[in-house]
């Protein structure tokens, strides 16, 4: 098998994201992660929701399923449960995943299906011209808003934690290497992995700009003071090795999750593989699940007759004299 190159994961579809869009960094990072992991192109499936982020699959030369607004997680979970051999990656926007799709975000956390899920988080609804998204903070007024935001924001990291995600990380679209490494960790994680990707919208978010993240406008000391810091560099390790660590770790993660403004943490907050994946839970009652998941099952013989034998079920319902 010839080695797959980065170019192999790119399509020729015209990319119509705005110049300078943070999504480009995420797209590159996904393609780099797939290249480094040498995922066979036909084995990888990118599922997306709706919005600018929803177009991502069309730019990646693997299977791409561009679904409905807010519904990427159930689509992706259905495919992964039916065929756990597939390498599925789910992507979507912040409005997509934490607004209209928030119920599925919580529902997915409870199931812990083995997929990585990336939210392209830019605090606005870009494709509909810049309305406030669920991650825009109360009182903030981005370019298109008539008045400052009257809704408060949801805390994606905390929500993922309490919903039961077993891998929770944050990265930044302009730090492509960090993002690529985080995506790789999310892909290899056994269970549902959430990556909150901070991604400036250059067109509609005039507050959380690239310069803002770089701290260029925060020059108390005369030089830029980047807002983003890496939690791994502070000595933090989010891996749960024993169940007794969970409570302390959760407290720490909630602290991280509320940091914003001058100090914004990125990195892997949480990874807990002690919790069985949904697939393992199925296999507990269905021993052959991994060997014969739904997609692998024969259902008819050569004459197209059903292969199922319903005799025992019918016998139970049959009238006995």
């Amino acid at each position: 098998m010839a080695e797959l190159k980065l170019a192999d994961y790119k399509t020729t579809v015209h990319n119509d994201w705005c110049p300078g869009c943070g999504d480009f960094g995420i797209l590159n990072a996904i393609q780099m992660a797939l290249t480094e992991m040498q995922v066979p192109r036909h084995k990888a499936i990118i599922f997306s929701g709706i919005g600018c982020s929803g177009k991502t699959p069309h730019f990646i030369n693997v299977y791409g399923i561009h679904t409905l607004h807010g519904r990427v997680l159930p689509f992706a979970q259905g495919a992964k449960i039916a065929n756990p051999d597939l390498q599925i990656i789910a992507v979507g926007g912040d409005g997509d995943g934490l607004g209209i799709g928030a119920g599925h975000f919580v529902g997915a956390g409870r199931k812990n299906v083995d997929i990585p899920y990336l939210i392209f988080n830019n605090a606005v609804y870009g494709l509909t011209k810049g309305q406030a998204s669920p991650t825009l903070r109360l009182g903030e007024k981005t370019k298109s808003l008539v008045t400052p935001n009257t809704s408060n924001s949801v805390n994606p990291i905390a929500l993922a934690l309490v919903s039961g995600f077993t891998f929770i990380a944050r990265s930044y679209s302009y730090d492509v290497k960090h993002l690529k490494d985080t995506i790789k960790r999310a892909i290899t994680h056994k269970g549902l992995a959430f990556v909150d990707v901070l991604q400036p919208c250059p067109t509609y978010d005039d507050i959380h700009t690239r310069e803002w993240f770089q701290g260029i406008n925060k020059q108390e000391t005369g030089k830029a003071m980047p807002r983003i810091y890496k939690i791994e560099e502070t000595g933090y390790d989010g891996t749960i090795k024993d169940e007794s660590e969970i409570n302390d770790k959760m407290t720490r993660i909630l602290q991280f999750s509320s940091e914003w403004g001058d100090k914004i943490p990125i990195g892997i907050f949480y990874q807990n593989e002690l919790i069985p994946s949904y697939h393992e839970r199925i296999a507990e009652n269905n021993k052959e699940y991994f060997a014969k998941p739904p997609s692998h099952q024969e259902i008819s013989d050569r004459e197209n007759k059903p292969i199922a034998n319903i005799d025992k079920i019918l016998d139970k319902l049959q009238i006995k004299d």
Partner: protein
Amino acid sequence: MSFSTSVNSISWLIGGPQGSGVDSSANIFAKTCAKEGFYIFGKREFYSNIKGEHSYFTIRISDKPVNSHVEDINVLVSFDAETVFRHADKVSTGGLIIYDSSLAETVLEEVPTIDFEASNRIRKLLEDSGQSINLNGMLEFAKSRGCMVYGLPYFEMLETVAQKMNDPKLSKISRVVNVMAIAASISLLGIKKDMLISAIQEVFGSKPKLLDSNIEAAEYAYYYIGTKYNTKNIKYKITPKDALKDHLLLSGSQAAAIGKILAGCRFQTYYPITPASDESEFLESNHIIDQVDGKSGSIVVVQTEDEIAAITMAIGASLTGVRTATATSGPGFSLMAEALGWAGMNEVPLVVTMYQRAGPSTGLPTRHEQSDLLFAINAGHGEFPKIVLASGDIEESFYDTIKAFNFAETFQLPVIHLLDKAISSSIQTCKRFNNSLNIERGEFKNTIDKNQSEGAAGHFQRFKLEDSPISTRVPIGTENAIFWNTGDEHTEEGHISEDTENRNKMMDKRMKKLDLALEKINQDDMAMCYDFDSDGNNVIISWGSTKGGILEALEKLSQEGNKMKLIQVRLLHPFPTETVKKFLKDAKLVIDVEMNYTSQLGSLVQQNTGREIDYKIVKYNGRPMSTTEIYIALKAILSGNNERRIVLDGGT
């Protein structure tokens, strides 16, 4: 008007508080009669409630196949006062009422679960007939109409049984009372005790303790009523026949679930909803599947966070090649509408089993209606192809389920299989199901040659524009076949396209599937014409669960010299215009019968065939149509009734 012949054709009813074992008692009775060689049709009625509200189960027993219920009750079995209050006025002349003699003084107002409206109706009935407003009054009223009443002191009897079994705790087990009540009715009907014992063994076989006490109680009640009352003058009798060979006794939701297993459905999603959940629960209980090759398969059943997740998860699974379904009812189906369009747009096979109940909104959540026909046909924004198929009874539900999957894969689109509560929750004796149907997967392939994948941009063309609107379909994950899906209009590879020419071609491709479906689907699956030697002048059109009641009414009318035919439309979308036109050709009178307010099938027929509907028989009180009321309404029309729309109101 009675459909019962007193011997070997009887309508039996047991009622009681929800959660008190009415269902299992009715099951024992139905099994007992089925073992005696009788055909069964059983109908369940219950409130949206866990415990305490009035529920009842009507069972029709006949020496001929039955597929509907009747208004009359010939045997009323009760162990609470409410059942007598609510149903005694429906008991036929010469009919039997079994009641708890210790409750005879119960005053109507003392029964808290009888709602205000029903209470007023009962009070008026008793006042008008000069009876006291208590259970005794109701029984006297029944007697004045020729009913026979049999009081049983259940708890005294229970104490005797407890002493006999040396188990004082038994006298507290109220559930045993149900079995005593049915045993008494079986004794009155002249059925041998053995079949009752054998039925009890089947129902309680896995619980030895319960089994013994139930058998003891049943035997005691069986003899007790015979010694206490003279049973010679009872006109309703069951005389044993040869056992039915190769017959099942099952519900519609079980039939559909078994159909799914045989059809190869290996992934089902659902969100709990009445009356659809029964099917998913049956699948969960039978998730390991026997195979003819001696190996085993399995179905994964996933309970989701809502119905949007249920349908989108099912679509995601379907993309991997597995036959996939979801089951729901009206409120859940409303949530599924958007995703249905995605499946249509991306040509994804999917079966949605839709168990209708009375709407709108939460409506009458545990009651009956066929009011989602036009909604099912029009569900989803924009225009996309789908197939809507409706089964007429429990047996059809099984075979149609297999057909629904075949249609979904052959035409690569969502199929909505319409059932309703009158099918799903009812039980019936059916001929044992066979596996005569083939699995038809259309243009589904598991592998693709490398050279096949060279499309315009070197890619597999999932939505290839060719003469046939059906393209090669492969599971995601197949080598040499990478494609894209999107809810946007798309190219042959599946990339977004807003091009005008491409748009027209893709719309044509998708919508042409409807013409293809009308070409390929068998006529019997489009519409059935039941002709009672009629000259074709008087035609009834209907769909779904009303079939049984109509057919029986037509049989009776035919015997009386009024010959009519029934067109049961089974394929509701795309509408089988030519077939229905052919059946309607010589019709002088067209009567539409359906359980909704607006005669939805009627408007479809009119819209598609141009034939006006002459009479409409409708019902929307939440109770299914009995063959009795259909018969009376048809008779009224035939005798020159001028009402163009007859609203039926039967049921309790």
